[in-house]
């Protein structure tokens, strides 16, 4: 993976324009700017999610690239149609889906599975804040155990879905996780994905001050804590072989991770987490690491 420098990010095309409707501290906006600027000639398919609102009100558009807004569970199929048609026309574009976790983990899962199984030449990017943000913070399949949302007022009882392992079971060429705390990493991974033929899936941890309940100034710091506590591991799976990125590789040993409480205490959504849920959450995190280790090359 080519190293991306700050100057590369500064010189990258301006894809997210001023006047967008993002909240202060929005992890999605960092992710979008870093990601979409990394690929040649993007066409971005956006289902129902915060990104479709951040776009602002017609006739204004704050994305400086061809954008398709579409219904919730249609994204990957629409992207499949676009990429095949552009190929038929002999025109070179990078066709992407840009979706939140709701449209990825839950309602849109079938259409992602179909596109992955057909190995469609698209980059599917999920920016993940762990709940349905656009409708006001309801639980999703991505919500971690113990987190408070409007539909889990006493903390979610179920384990977070491992979307990357679900996609990995489709044997696609490239899967990666990255984080809004690491824009150069986002940029590098999107650049890499754009050069691979076939279905690529990228999960971006995108902290959300509004829904997770923290000072908007701390988004990047929170993203880094998510990594350093092991809550969100950073890795790539290429042709079925998993490789942790350096920042997470050192954390394979749980004793090397910062205590999870460092992460939980920063967010209102974990303010009243029970000790039972905390214990289970720790087990969830470790069992995900164990499952990932099994995929390691």
């Amino acid at each position, binding site marked *: 993976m080519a190293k991306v420098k700050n100057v590369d990010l500064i010189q990258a095309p301006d894809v997210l324009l001023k006047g967008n409707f993002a909240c202060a501290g929005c992890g999605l906006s960092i992710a979008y700017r870093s990601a979409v600027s990394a690929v040649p000639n993007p*066409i971005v398919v956006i289902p129902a999610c915060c990104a479709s609102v951040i776009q602002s009100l017609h006739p204004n558009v704050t994305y400086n690239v061809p954008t398709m807004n579409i219904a919730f569970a249609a994204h990957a199929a629409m992207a499949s149609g676009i990429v095949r048609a552009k190929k038929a026309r002999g025109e070179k574009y990078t066709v992407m889906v840009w979706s939140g976790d709701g449209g990825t983990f839950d309602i849109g899962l079938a259409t992602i599975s179909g596109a992955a199984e057909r190995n469609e030449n698209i980059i599917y990017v999920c920016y993940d804040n762990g709940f349905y943000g656009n409708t006001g913070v309801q639980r999703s399949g991505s919500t971690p155990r113990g987190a408070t949302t409007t539909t889990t007022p006493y903390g979610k009882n179920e384990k977070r879905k491992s979307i990357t392992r679900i996609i990995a079971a489709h044997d696609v060429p490239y899967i990666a996780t990255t984080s809004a705390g690491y824009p150069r990493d986002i940029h590098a991974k999107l650049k890499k994905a754009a050069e691979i033929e076939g279905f690529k899936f990228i999960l971006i941890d995108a902290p959300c001050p509004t829904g997770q309940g923290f000072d908007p100034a701390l988004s990047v710091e929170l993203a880094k804590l998510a990594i350093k506590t092991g809550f969100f591991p950073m890795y790539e799976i290429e042709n079925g072989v998993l490789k942790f990125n350096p920042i997470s590789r050192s954390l394979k040993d749980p004793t090397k991770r910062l205590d999870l409480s460092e992460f939980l205490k920063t967010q209102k959504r974990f303010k009243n987490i029970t000790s039972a849920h905390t214990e289970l959450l720790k087990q969830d995190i470790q069992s995900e690491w164990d499952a990932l280790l099994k995929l390691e090359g």
Partner: protein
Amino acid sequence: MAQVQAPKYPETTELLTGNHAVSAAVKLARPGVIAAYPITPQTEIVEKLSVWCQTGELDAEFVAVESEHSALAAAMGISLAGCRSFTATASHGLLYMYELVWWASITRIPVAMAIVNRSLNPWNIWPAHEDSMSTRDCGWIQLYAKNNQEAFDNTLMQFKIGENHKVWLPSMNCMDGFILSHTTSQVSIPSQEVVNEYLGEFNPLVMFDKDNPFAHGSLTAAAQIIELRESMMQGLDNARKIWPSVCQQYRDLTGRWYGDFFEIHGDLDDAKIGVMALGTLGEEMEQSIEILNKKGIKTASIRPRVYRPFPRDEIIDILSKLETVVIIDRACSYGAGYYDKDRGGQLATEIKAALYDADLKLKVVPLVRGLGGMDINYVDIANWVEKYTQR
């Protein structure tokens, strides 16, 4: 329907099922990419196209999507990316893509779709119009074919009308399941040259273009939504105006013409009674009126070919010559009518509204028949007309 003139170019004749007739027409229309999902009784349309895409007989890609919802999503993506686009479905497949059916028309994406009419559930695969009627409000152009030849011809006409830049709307070509889709008849097939002349290359009004980025389907406030909806209404009005030329140009090239909005049999000036139905019942009616006229019950048959845009002025023009019209709907809007009176068949309801606006005093006999694929034929129709008009 008689050949009104010789075709401009020689045609071939094949024995085809309704489904394969549609496949043959789609092949000639040269779509760039096809996305589809199987469902009885449409499956053979897409199976055939899929095979042709893989043998190279049709130079197009086939996206074997994982659901009908995805089929329409992909078809919309194909169109916006700049290729002619086609899909097909029926019954619950259409219901499954329902939100996108609205999306395609209200955001103006001209997908062409074949609907092989099939009853809605509990599991029933046989013909009725509940499926296509449930989408009549969406703004799609809706055509109804009476036989395999018209199913073929309508396929080409739907691309023609939908892609007109003054219309730019998606379209449904409806044909009765099993009666047409699975029975074989002679179909005249124009040459590729004729179809090229008729349709031309796909010429998108809008297309994703890196040099001219736009967002399609943005968050839109009320005033602009109203603008968009009004624009769609104007598009449908334009479709009404342009449709006769679509049919007439087709006649010039192939010699075939069914009428523009209606196919009429019998003598309208002499008849007192009209009978109306969509699809294959419309062809049955042609036989029914022979029985009735022999009995001295002067009847004409009026088969609407186009349901959307609804040819309101044209129907008034025709009905103003009659005293009674028997309308047979193969679906109804449940709750719109009464079990033992007017049952709220959609065609009947819309005709009654048109008659009211035109202040025409016509007796309307609305019948709902043939639900669930119940087999009804020209003898039944003749009996009903006699029963309900000769008391």
